[in-house]
């Protein structure tokens, strides 16, 4: 099912609008991630889709049907809440069967569906337990099974991974991806973690300040961000930024002059800073203040005369004084309003 949000406005009491003129489209059968910092309005979007909030203005469409004022229970949606909201007084089996019971499905049919879902989320041996007896990861899988029970047209996941530890996160991220592929249900995943979004989403929507900043695949967002906010929210370590005036002259020369003159801010990806022989005319002298090993990679903190930069392209070294070259494909130029005017090779 394709979901369309058109010109949505929503403000909580006595606060500036959380969403203003917000429009977005979620393609049918795909997993869309809403990525943004807390307070960006991403949970608000989810609650609007769920029908737990009603917009002050604007429309929501499920395919061609308008559902803006339709009650949650008539929207045919499955939702996984942030800390799962499993009914504590029901067993895993009855939790999963709950939406079917509400729809007056007969008990035998109900439990058959539960068996299917338990298989899908790999919880078959835990059906008789109560939620409090399960680990966080198991609870999450039960919550997903419950959300899928009535074969919803839309699956909403509200930060489903945020309360889990790193190893489990990886596992369950995979799990969500697998289940979404197996069922083909249109899915929205809200997260503040770019790794969650990059690893499983077909398309990522970046939200900040109540506005949709950009929609695209992980590659597109990284290579061709529309603005500084997007560029800063994708990529780890975060994009190095500096004012154009602070950039050393030797590096300015590798950037295209026509765009450079319009720009106020330069963004430098960490992989664009590499070691170069001092004889090269486009190098800048720098000192290494800190180098840390992050698994396979090294993350190096550098200082030039004017800048503090982070690089991941420097090899492990004991030197502190180094000559650093700048790779133009890892550079971004931003205009005064934050718009990206040049992104390494092509202009945005």
């Amino acid at each position, binding site marked *: 099912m394709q979901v369309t949000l058109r010109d949505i406005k929503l403000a909580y009491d006595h606060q500036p609008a959380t969403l203003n003129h917000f429009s977005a489209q979620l393609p049918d059968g795909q997993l869309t991630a809403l990525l943004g910092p807390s307070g960006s309005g991403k949970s608000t979007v989810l609650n609007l889709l*769920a*029908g*737990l909030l009603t917009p002050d203005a604007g429309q929501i469409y499920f395919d061609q049907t308008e559902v803006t004022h339709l*009650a*949650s*229970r008539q*929207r045919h*949606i*499955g*939702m996984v*809440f942030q*800390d799962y*909201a499993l*009914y*504590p*007084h029901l*067993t895993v089996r009855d939790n999963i069967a*709950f*939406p079917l*019971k*509400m*729809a007056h499905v007969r008990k035998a049919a109900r439990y058959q569906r539960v068996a299917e879902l338990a298989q899908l989320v790999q919880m078959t041996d835990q059906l008789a*337990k*109560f939620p*409090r*007896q399960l680990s966080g990861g198991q609870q999450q899988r039960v919550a997903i099974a*419950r959300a899928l*029970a*009535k074969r919803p047209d839309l699956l909403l996941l509200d930060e489903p991974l945020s309360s889990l530890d790193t190893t489990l996160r990886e596992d369950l991220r995979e799990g969500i991806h697998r289940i979404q592929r197996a069922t083909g249900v249109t899915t929205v995943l809200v997260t503040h973690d770019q790794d969650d979004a990059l690893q499983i989403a077909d398309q990522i929507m970046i939200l900040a300040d109540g506005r949709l900043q950009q929609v695209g695949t992980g590659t597109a967002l990284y290579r061709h961000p529309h603005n500084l906010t997007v560029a800063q929210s994708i990529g780890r370590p975060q994009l190095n930024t500096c004012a154009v005036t602070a950039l050393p002259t030797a590096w300015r020369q590798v950037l295209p002059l026509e765009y450079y003159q319009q720009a106020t801010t330069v963004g430098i990806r960490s992989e664009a800073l590499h070691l170069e022989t001092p004889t090269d005319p486009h190098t800048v002298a720098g000192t290494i203040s800190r180098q840390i090993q992050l698994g396979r990679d090294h993350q190096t903190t550098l200082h030039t005369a004017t800048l503090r930069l982070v690089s991941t392209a420097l090899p492990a070294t004991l030197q502190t004084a180094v000559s650093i070259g700048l790779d133009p494909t890892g550079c971004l130029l931003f205009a005064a309003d934050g718009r990206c005017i040049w992104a390494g090779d092509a202009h945005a």
Partner: protein
Amino acid sequence: MLNAKPTWKSTLKTLLYLAPLLLITAVFTIWPLLNAFLMSVYTKYNYFTDHVGAIGWNNFAYLWHDPLFHLACRNTLLLALVATPLTVALSLLIAYGLNRIHHLARFFRTIYFLPFVTSTIAVGLVWNWIFRLDGGLLNRILGWFGYSAIDWLNDPHYALAALMVVCVWQGLGFNILLFLASLNHIDQRYTAAARLDGANAWQRFTNVTWPLLLPMTILIIVNTALTNFKVFDQVYALFHGSAGPGNADLTLLYYLYQKFYVENQYAVAAASGVIFFLLIGGVTLLTYGYFRHRRRQMGGRL
């Protein structure tokens, strides 16, 4: 130290801290309780000289054959069995309503809580006026609907019902407060989840809210049942120091009071007290047992 092991010394020290309260409990609760149990088997007993002539089950035999005691038992059980569910159901309904309205909720909460903090004597007098045959509020309202006036307080058929009304009304305030606290404690996400799972308002209440309220409901049922077993002052105030027309509102505690203070049959009063004790003890154990059973059923939660 969080992992300190209890020793004899530490236990003694703890007892020393507890001693003042333990002493008060022993003197004013445990000693009288023991005495009451003992007194219930004294048969030839002079209360003023504390002379015990003989010991035996005669007092209990007396109660066994006393039609007044039977009446008191019947009235008390009837009162508890009717007033308790009514009180609990009404307070749940009102608390649920108050929880959902946003305006004036505080005002209504105060109104409902007032009976709990008002003296029973004052309450009894006001209800006495409400129930009056001529000019009473209740009969006036009945009159508007075309019913003939009922002499609530002097007709043996209605006197117990009148008492029930007062007991229910007086029990509402505190129970509403407890239910409201418990309702506020239920995580909103459960109802939101149920909404998305397709549950309508009634299904949300029966499948989510009600089961989550169960621990509090059991507590309230026990508490209300005990309160309704112990009705005395309401009778006293409503009927100006009698047990109602033809003893229609004679409760167990009123019976005990009469035996002790009016008829000076101290040992019989003590025996009825023992039976009363066993009765409410039994009710408490029964509900507690049910509670434990449910807790085990729900995987140790609650």
